[in-house]
């Protein structure tokens, strides 16, 4: 898995490419935490090229969302979620916990 982060004016764009599972989830968590440690709490997670996600990846997402929403500091929103990944989010009951946008542009525009 590869993770890239892009600082935008009103939010940060985090993009993961590949498989997010127990092996790679710590790498994703590190990317979010590095930004949170800089006081940045508005995130767009571009999932367009996530072709697999396990509960380890979901654990990172829920942890980041909780941290973002503490004291209304910010929010993690999702963009371009592939159908299979969306099914996994749905199975976990995660869909109501995240704003999900069809495109990155829409997600960035929500901030």
């Amino acid at each position: 898995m590869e993770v890239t982060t892009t600082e935008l004016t009103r939010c940060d764009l985090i993009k993961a490419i590949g498989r997010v599972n127990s092996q790679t989830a710590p790498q994703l968590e590190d990317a979010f935490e590095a930004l949170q440690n800089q006081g940045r709490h508005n995130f767009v997670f571009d999932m367009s090229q996530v072709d697999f996600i396990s509960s380890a990846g979901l654990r990172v997402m829920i942890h980041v969302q909780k941290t973002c929403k503490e004291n209304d500091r910010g929010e993690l929103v999702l963009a371009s979620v592939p159908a299979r990944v969306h099914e996994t989010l749905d199975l976990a009951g995660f869909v109501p916990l995240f704003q999900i946008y069809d495109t990155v542009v829409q997600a960035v525009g929500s901030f």
Partner: protein
Amino acid sequence: MTQSSKPSEVSRIFPARFDSLADICVFVTQRAEVAGFGPRAVYAVQVAVDEACSNIIEHAYGSEGPTGVRRPLDTRTQPDKGAQTIECTCRIKRDRLIIQLHDHGRPFDPATVPKPDLEADLSERHAGGLGVYFIQQLMDAVQFESVPGQGNTLTLIKCRTPPNLGGNSRPEPA
């Protein structure tokens, strides 16, 4: 990695490490495709096996936690500390794929893991238990057996067509 094969049964042994998950996924994907599964069922097998193997690595062997913390092994249940492996056997039987994951760690029965609360508010939401929940939801049958001295075997059964819920809905034993 070792391999043995019969026409409908293939077995491989992987090191019980998170960096084996990708290889295990390739292996079970290939077997699911040979069994004639469509993309959705193949993905279900990938998720279930990834979760099951992650649990074996994390809970049975206790050697690689999500935070990288290494915990000592219980030598009563794993006399051979060197044998930290997962043996994955895939058997194709008519319309079903039977996956057996064998380890020599501490017994970790998925049935003992409480179902996660999928409707809790964000502040109350925990991701613990999701992996086992996924396995149970995505597979048609899940069986766990632990034999002292011989290790643990988790059997996952996925049918190519969903079992008939109106009649004999449970797949035959592996």
